[in-house]
């Protein structure tokens, strides 16, 4: 959206950017992605996150990060990114056989 302001000066109309909200529901747990919202600045993003996502006491701590700062992997690369891990079965405990008598290992 473009808007003409003042004496012919042309500026781009800027909307409130998108933020991602992460909430820790109680101490001991990790922050989990809760959703997103719009806010003009970081203070507002925190306040809005509190008002939007913790109305029913869902949280004890909030992180907000502007969505544009998140770098995401591309699903088209999922093959090269994630499949090579699939045959590394030796990383998992069940790969190793132990006599039944051995407990707690």
């Amino acid at each position, binding site marked *: *959206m473009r808007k003409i302001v003042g004496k012919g000066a042309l500026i781009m109309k*800027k*909307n*409130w950017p*998108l933020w991602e909200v992460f909430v820790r529901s109680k101490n001991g747990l990790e922050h989990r992605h809760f*959703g*997103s*919202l*719009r806010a*003009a*600045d970081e203070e*507002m993003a925190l306040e809005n996150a509190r008002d*939007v996502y913790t*109305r*029913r006491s869902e949280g004890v701590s909030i992180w907000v990060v502007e969505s544009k700062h998140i770098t*995401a992997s*591309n*699903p*088209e690369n999922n093959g090269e990114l994630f499949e090579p891990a699939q045959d590394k079965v030796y990383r998992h405990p069940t790969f190793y056989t132990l006599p039944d008598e051995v407990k707690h290992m």
Partner: protein
Amino acid sequence: MSEKEIKNLEELFDQRIARDEKIEPKDWMPEKYRKTHIRQISQHAHSEIVGMLPEGNWISRAPSMRRKVALLAKVQDEAGHGLYLYSACETLGISREELYEQLHTGKAKYSSIFNYPTLTWADIGAIGWLVDGAAIINQVPLCSTSYGPYARAMIRVCKEESFHQRQGYEIMMTLANGTPEQKELAQDALNRWWWPSLMMLGPTDAESVHTEQSMKWKLKRKTNDELRQQFIDQTVPQADLIGLTVPDSDLKWNEETKKYDFGEIDWDEFWQVVKGHGPCNKERLSARVNAWEEGEWVRDAAMAYAEKQQNNKIKKAI
């Protein structure tokens, strides 16, 4: 991409959904899937925020403090639900502002039930009981729909919405058990909201254009007629229980089918309202447009302030 390649991708895509795999925002998806989802999710979001208006009417006039805070919290939840759904929609590559634009210009639809007026306090009860009741029937299956962000938004919505219908039914129950005047309010509200609530579940299967494709993509689990039957079967006993009469002289329990038979729905009325000729279409839309336009200077101010703050930070750092 060649047509054959696309065809191939589409087949793989359909198989993923058939296996109950979720589709996430950056995954490849057929253009039609994206468009259909934008349409449905935004329609849903618009319904939430337009739906705030008829109920919002009564916040300042609620009859008791307890009812006032409950209604206020409920209408606020609807704003929240609108927000979750707009956010889900934005993951499909369209902005909230563009979606508003579609709503404000009449290009996008919202649930036509919100074009009916709330004339008495009992209407607030009827909306909670019937409209939210019908909405829940529609929404619960969407918690397992194929598009991840939509399914996640719906899980949150359904969780929060569980108090809405109870709130409405409790209002109706109180009125129905109250003075004759109160009971009359309740019956009158049921009379006015019953048929629009049935229409809310969408046109009959024969007329519904999107059903088959939507079933495949798990945007729908049951047809409109099935949902309507389910709604009637669960709601009629609730009306009986509080001594209210459903305004349908053809309504009768069918021993054979174990379902209620019901009367003819006035689909002309439905299409009239959808096409913009309902009692409050104009008022609802202009309330939304006004809020957005009158809020523009506020949003601009916040943006300008944020930029100034950012520049100050940079200056300080240098």
